[in-house]
């Protein structure tokens, strides 16, 4: 490995780790989410350094562009936690520690096992441009083609299981959202309210002046779906 690459690696790794530490130590939860985005982008840069362009781009597309936005949305929609001064350490901190250690225990043996392969590949790369097939085998280059082939070949079953899981999550979200919608009362436009007033129908209100919700709403939605 040439010294410039090592230097770049150290800088990126330190930035990634630093922003990772900031995620768990910063007290403002929005700032913590923003630091999380920074560490995602750092990981993408590491992928790029390993010449896994496809993985790097997908990391930015999925994690930095979508997951982090989801996190931000979740934070902003639950208003209580947006304020500052959120506690960083909770009573059950040891559970988190256990999980982190367990994950570390999975990752390190994997690295240990594949380290030899990678060193071999690095030696091959130093010798010169290897024939494409051989390079792909020894380097385990994570190009889109390679990933696609292994999804559809070697790892077909895990891939399908994950697909089914995602599909279930999708259907679950639709079901929940649909139920929410049937309970909600439709908001009338001004013109509709005026038309109703002209016909002498006044919306029923309770003592405080709020509109009383009705059960007839479900019937309207039924009617809607029948017409469609």
């Amino acid at each position: 490995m040439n010294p410039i690459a090592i230097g770049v690696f150290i800088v990126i790794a330190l930035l990634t780790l630093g922003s990772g530490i900031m995620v768990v130590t910063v007290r403002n939860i929005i700032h913590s989410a923003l630091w999380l985005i920074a560490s995602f982008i750092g990981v993408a840069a590491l992928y790029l350094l390993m010449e896994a362009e496809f993985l790097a781009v997908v990391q930015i597309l999925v994690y930095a562009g979508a997951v982090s936005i989801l996190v931000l949305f979740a934070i902003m929609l639950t208003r209580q936690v947006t304020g500052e001064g959120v506690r960083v350490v909770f009573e059950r901190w040891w559970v988190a520690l256990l999980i982190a250690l367990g994950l570390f225990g999975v990752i390190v043996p994997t690295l240990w096992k594949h380290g030899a392969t990678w060193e071999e590949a690095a030696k091959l790369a130093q010798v010169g441009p290897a024939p494409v097939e051989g390079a792909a085998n020894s380097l385990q280059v994570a190009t889109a083609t390679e990933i696609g082939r292994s999804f559809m070949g070697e790892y077909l079953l895990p891939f399908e299981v994950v697909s089914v899981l995602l599909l279930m999550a999708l259907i679950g979200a639709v079901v929940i959202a649909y139920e929410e919608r049937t309970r909600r009362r439709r908001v009338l436009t001004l013109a509709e309210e005026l038309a109703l007033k002209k016909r002498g129908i006044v919306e029923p209100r309770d003592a405080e002046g709020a509109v009383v919700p009705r059960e007839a709403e479900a019937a309207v939605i039924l009617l809607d779906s029948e017409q469609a």
Partner: protein
Amino acid sequence: MADALTQLGFASWLSVLIASIIKVTLILVGGSVGMMFLTWYERRSISYMQDRRGPNRVGPQGLLQPISEAIKTMTKEDATPRDADKIVHFLAPVVMLGATVLSFAVIPWGRMFPVDLNAAVLFVIATGGLHSIGMMMAGWGSNNKFALLGGMRGVAQLISYEIPQVMAIIPVVLMTGSMSLQKIVEAQNDFAGLGWYVFSPVGLLGFALFFTASLAEGERTPFDIPEADSEIIAGYMTEYSGMKFAVFYLSNYMSNLAVCFITATLYLGGGNGPGVDALGGIAGGLLSLIYFLLKSFALFFVMVLIRATVPRLRVDQLMSFAWKFLLPLVLVNILSASFWVALLRWDQQWPKLTEWFGAPSTADATNWGRLAIAIVLTLLINAGAVALIMRLTNRNVQKHLYTTDEELALGLS
């Protein structure tokens, strides 16, 4: 470029460094000059559409107007709200501009490719997705309700239109067999440089869908809901002034420029055109650059035309347009693209089939025949899908425009 410098006698690392610096400078200068031209071009053309003259006093035909505006914004006061999150407020425009400039790294200028990334197509979309972070930061960091509303609207819009945008590209990737923009441009060089994807039924539908989704990604009218000035002042930009506002403005126009460039590259053949290969060398490169710029600015003219004609959508219309109109059509388009690929080059995609049935003859007659079958089949699928979905959408729109008395009575009596 680096090779040429090494031949001149520079050390290899130095020549790589110099070449990179030259490329980066060209990208930055090209992007910002393009943006300045774009603002003038948009204002002049929309003025003529609205029966007025537009900026025509500074320089010949008002061409220097963008420079005077740049000086004006730079000398304006740069105010930050007292209770704003200062750092986030400051970083938001930086993130936006950074994401936009990143996407310029892979955009080919005619036949010149700054960086030929293997996943270049995805890279452009990914950098576009980073805009949502900047938007969120601007909305939240301003500590202003209108800004937050605008930011939320913008992010919701960006992440829902990203899906049809990404999936509209899949047919192009299928037809090319690669995600590199260079390969995509090369693949459209048949028929004397006129084998553009937009001339095939798959490409035509893909072009329309991708361009529409990109309009929403670039916050152009009719999708400019995040900064709808009559509803929420200026959306996430409400609390920005002076240079920071100018940076937002710059990144907005640069991303619109990038959208035009990418659409021209993906569907309109990039720098391909009649005569480029015949000329060859530097002259051919220049001709391809001219073709490319002409195509891109024609696309931008379409954007301006849309801005002058179509009124802004409501938020619910925006969402149902993405999910109920664009997404089904995009899926159908992927289906017909796979038919297209299967008919035209199953020998390349599936060697197994060649083993079983023998290689398809490369004789011209069979190729033309297969092309004709592919065009008819994909045209039928796409036209049928468009007609069906248009019908369904029209019915839906009419239902939402007029509420019948019965519905009112049922809902409230």
